[in-house]
């Protein structure tokens, strides 16, 4: 069993192996064949059959494998079979096309012996591997190498051409260098280049290799694109080769070539960026000198040349640009000059002349004018006009409405307007006027400053189309400059006017400053004097020179300095704009004067730092008057108190006298009652009680008086009564005059001083005078005479009398004149004489009234001479 199984297994293994082999053979892409030793086909694998496009093997069985090969390959196959038969391995590469589709195939063929058990070659195994791809690659490679070699040369040529292109910057030189370079690879008897001229649809000869220039082939000659050999190449963007011109020519242009002896030629288009720009032409005096590959080469060269031509054009453009730059530079220079003119010419006419002169060099014109817009009137005014071109209408100062010309549009839009042909483009009245004066084109640009138009700059020419956009642009720049200048000029004029005004006002102020009655001083921020006027010098007794070394504090009274400096500081710190202060200055001689100062801070300018302006008014007199007034007021208050007190004193006296009288009377009554025989003691008791009560009452009153007198002590001092009278007369002068009273003072000489209170006595005199004046107010039939008399009365008295010529005294009331509240005057309160008497009596004197012998009355008082030295 086991053996069977083993055999079976071996059998199966063998079968598996066979199957595997046949599958491998079938799967292999190689063509595997078994040959007999003679080289006849015994079998072939499936893969090989497929590769050879053979469906059945049978027709090929026993056929000679060697015969499949041809030529050299058959010999190689023969040799390989022989090698195999001899026990070696033969190998070769052979060509064999497939059976059906005849695809060319290269095979790598290996022939090796299949040995029998004895090791003798029994059969041959031929394995052919398809190496077609490889073979083709090799071919290609070889071809490529060849190509490389060729293109290497061409490349070199191109490089040379390139070099030529780079180094030769003229077309002639380029073409020459081109020919030199080309000559190594293509035949060149003739050479030229043309460029397409689109405007005329021609190809213009750009260059002809020098030695071959003929009457026809000259630089600049243009050959029509249509119906020309050059045009064909240009149009088709393909090279045109004529191997034999005599038989092949088609275009009339070729006749010229034939005439020149050209037998063959090649025309290559110059193509740049897919676009034809011209042609490159080479020709030969012999036939058949140009192949396709030459054409190709020339095409390449053409591309290069095209580039070069482009470069050359660029170069030309650059050169043109250079020219342009130069032009622009010229314009710049002009602008600069204009700028200069603007800076240096301060009158509009001069400026404009300079500007127009500078302009003339870069832009031609027959007219030039500047206009300024007047927005209030809606008009343009010729500010300046190149004087040569003034006409009856167009002249400086001409003012025309905005509707009259193109100026308004230019002004409003801040854009230039160019008219190329006024005849066709006239639009405004001024256009027609210009045209009438021979102007055919113009350019008007706005004068703009900071985005604001102020006017226009106008150029006109007799030539049509004189002004380009570039001109307009340039003019615009000029316009901006001029606008700036005009503005500046206006500013300058304003400044100049202001300067004049300032100078004038300066002068005026100087005069005011110097001649002012008010002291004026200018002080720096430290209070140091910068300048003072004469009044100030006079006030302080210092000269300006002396004051310059001082600050205002130095001349300020010591007590005022601190507060004064505080005020000035507030001013400087901006806490106040100005201040007014009444203070005292100390003069150079040490005396004091009162001033009222108005101090303000004058803000600084670029040229002058801020300073203090001080206006000082001498108010010493006013101050004195004020002080006097204050004293008088105090005294009046005092007097009022005193007079009130005096009035009270009168009534107080009565108040005291009454109880005293009652006491005395009661006392007397008591005595009488007691001395009687049967006195009524009750009555006596009552009387005594009344006496006690009245005594108390009296003492109370006295206490009150004392209290009043304590406070109201009159200030008595030796004084001249005449002074008192004179002061009173001064005070009543206006009343005297107003009432038409004739005042006749008669004051005695050498009166002894009296002891008294000046103010109180003055009050008395005043009162008497006023009464006298009033007493005469109704007098119309006689002079109103007022006599004020003072004289000595005896050894110890001075008498003062006030005599009027009034209505006199009513004897019935004579004793009442001096009563308080008694008055004969409608508006009076009846205090005057009462007070006066109180005052006089307080001075130990007497006041009374007497009727005059004539009309009127005399009120008089007598005062004791002031020899007493009581406190």
């Amino acid at each position, binding site marked *: 069993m086991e053996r069977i199984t083993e055999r079976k297994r071996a059998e199966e293994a063998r079968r598996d192996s066979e199957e595997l082999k046949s599958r491998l053979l079938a799967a292999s892409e190689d063509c595997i064949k078994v040959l007999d030793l003679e080289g006849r086909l015994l079998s072939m694998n499936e893969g090989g059959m497929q590769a050879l496009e053979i469906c059945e093997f049978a027709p090929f069985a026993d056929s000679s494998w060697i015969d499949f090969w041809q030529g050299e390959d058959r010999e190689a196959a023969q040799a390989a079979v022989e090698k195999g038969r001899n026990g070696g391995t033969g190998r070769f590469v052979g060509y064999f096309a497939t059976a059906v589709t005849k695809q060319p195939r290269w095979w790598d063929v290996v022939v090796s012996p299949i040995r029998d058990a004895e090791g003798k070659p029994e059969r041959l195994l031929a394995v052919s591997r398809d190496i077609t791809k490889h073979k083709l690659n090799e071919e290609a490679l070889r071809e490529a190498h060849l190509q490389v070699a060729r293109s290497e040369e061409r490349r070199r040529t191109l490089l040379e051409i390139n070099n030529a292109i780079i180094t030769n910057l003229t077309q002639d030189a380029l073409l020459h260098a081109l020919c030199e370079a080309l000559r190594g690879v293509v035949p060149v008897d003739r050479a030229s280049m043309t460029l397409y001229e689109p405007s005329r649809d021609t190809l213009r000869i750009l260059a002809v290799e020098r030695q071959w220039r003929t009457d026809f082939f000259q630089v600049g000659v243009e050959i029509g694109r249509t119906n020309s050999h050059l045009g064909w190449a240009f149009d088709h963007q393909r090279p045109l080769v004529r191997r034999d011109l005599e038989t092949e020519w088609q275009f009339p242009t070729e006749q010229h070539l034939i005439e020149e002896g050209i037998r063959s030629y090649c025309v290559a288009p110059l193509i740049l960026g897919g676009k034809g720009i011209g042609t490159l032409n080479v020709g030969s005096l012999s036939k058949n000198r140009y192949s396709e590959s030459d054409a190709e080469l020339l095409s390449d060269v053409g591309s290069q040349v095209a580039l070069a031509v482009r470069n050359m054009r660029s170069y030309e453009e650059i050169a043109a640009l250079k020219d342009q730059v130069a032009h622009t530079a010229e314009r710049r220079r002009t602008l600069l000059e204009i700028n200069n003119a603007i800076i240096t010419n301060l009158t509009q006419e001069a400026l404009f002349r300079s500007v127009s002169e500078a302009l003339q060099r870069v832009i031609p014109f027959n007219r030039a004018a500047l206009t300024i817009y007047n927005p209030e009137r809606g008009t343009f005014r010729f500010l300046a006009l190149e004087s040569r071109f003034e006409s009856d209408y167009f002249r400086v100062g001409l003012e025309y409405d905005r509707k009259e010309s193109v100026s308004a549009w230019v002004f409003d839009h801040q854009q230039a307007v160019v008219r190329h042909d006024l005849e066709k483009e006239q639009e405004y009245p001024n256009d027609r006027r210009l045209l009438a004066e021979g102007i055919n084109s113009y350019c008007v640009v706005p004068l703009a400053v900071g985005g604001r138009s102020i006017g226009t700059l106008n150029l006109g020419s007799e030539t049509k189309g004189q002004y380009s956009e570039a001109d307009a642009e340039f003019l615009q720049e000029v316009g901006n400059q001029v606008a700036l200048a005009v503005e500046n000029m206006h500013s300058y004029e304003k400044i100049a006017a202001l300067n004049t005004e300032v100078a004038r006002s300066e002068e005026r102020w100087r005069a005011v400053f110097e001649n002012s009655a008010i002291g004026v001083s200018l002080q720096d921020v430290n209070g140091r004097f910068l300048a003072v006027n004469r009044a100030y010098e006079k006030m302080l007794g210092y000269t300006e020179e002396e004051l310059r070394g001082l600050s205002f504090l130095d001349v300020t009274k010591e007590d005022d300095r601190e507060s004064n400096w505080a005020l000035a500081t507030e001013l400087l710190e901006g806490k106040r704009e100005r201040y007014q202060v009444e203070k005292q200055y100390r003069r150079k001689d040490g005396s004091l004067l009162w001033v009222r100062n108005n101090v303000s801070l004058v803000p600084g300018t670029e040229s002058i730092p801020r300073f203090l302006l001080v206006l000082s008014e001498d108010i010493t007199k006013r101050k004195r008057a004020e002080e006097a007034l204050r004293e008088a007021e105090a005294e009046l208050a005092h007097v009022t108190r005193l007079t009130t007190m005096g009035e009270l004193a*009168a009534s107080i*006296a*009565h108040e005291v*006298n*009454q*109880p*005293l*009288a*009652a*006491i*005395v*009377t*009661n006392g*007397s*009554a008591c*005595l*009488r*009652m007691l001395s*009687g025989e049967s006195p009524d003691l009750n*009555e006596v008791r*009552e*009387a005594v009680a*009344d006496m006690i*009560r*009245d005594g108390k*009452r009296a003492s109370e009153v006295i206490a009150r008086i004392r209290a009043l007198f304590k406070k109201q002590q009159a200030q008595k001092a030796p004084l001249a009564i005449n002074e008192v009278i004179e002061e009173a007369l001064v005070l009543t002068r206006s009343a005297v005059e107003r009432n038409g009273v004739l005042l006749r003072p008669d004051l005695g000489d050498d009166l002894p001083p009296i002891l008294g209170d000046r103010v109180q006595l003055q009050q008395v005199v005043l009162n008497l005078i006023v009464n006298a004046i009033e007493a005469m107010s109704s007098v119309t039939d006689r002079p109103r005479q007022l006599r004020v008399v003072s004289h000595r009365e005896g050894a110890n008295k001075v008498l003062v009398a006030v005599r009027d010529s009034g209505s006199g005294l009513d*004897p*019935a009331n*004579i*004793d*009442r004149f*001096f009563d308080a509240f008694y008055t004969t005057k409608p508006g009076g309160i009846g205090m005057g004489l009462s007070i006066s008497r109180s005052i006089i009596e307080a001075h130990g004197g007497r006041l*009374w009234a007497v009727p005059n012998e004539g009309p009127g009355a005399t009120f008089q008082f007598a005062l004791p001479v002031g020899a007493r030295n009581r406190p």
Partner: protein
Amino acid sequence: MSEAEPTVFVIDDDLSVRKATERLVKSVGLRVMTFASALDFLKSARPDCPACLVLDVRLPGLSGLDLQRLLAERQVHIPIIFVTGHGDIPMSVQAMKSGAVEFLTKPFRDQALLDAIVQAIERDRSARRQQAEIAQLRERFDGLTPREREVMGLVANGLLNKQIAAQLGTTEKTVKVHRAQVMQKMHAGSLADLVRMAERLRDREP
């Protein structure tokens, strides 16, 4: 001729002074009437008797001097003694001119006032007597016929009967009858008596 008891009128606005004055006057047994103001005095019913007025110069309302003038105007001839707290010369002059008996300044001596009062009352008394006499004369005179009054006037002027008769256009005899009638009606004891009476009557004529 029985006479009413004399009275002293005191006008002073000051109660103390008024009372004291009243007390003093009473102490000498005189009748006193006091008033605080002139108006009170004027309004009061005064006894018909010899009297005097002690008057303060300063009074509220009517002053002392005002009252003096007013009484004079009313033919009230009561003697006035002025007293004042602070008299002055013009005022006293005025008062005296207007017929004041005395002008005393407070405080016054008691005797001075009392003397003045006595004097004043005496003056008033005699004035009153004269007044009464004149009134009697007047009364008698009024009882005369117009012819008798004429005759009496002419007699008093010292004309003789014959002259009177010629002047009146009548006979001497008729004049004699009238004259006797006048003498009797006028209670004249003698021609001198009648002449005096006529003079007194004439004095009172305005």
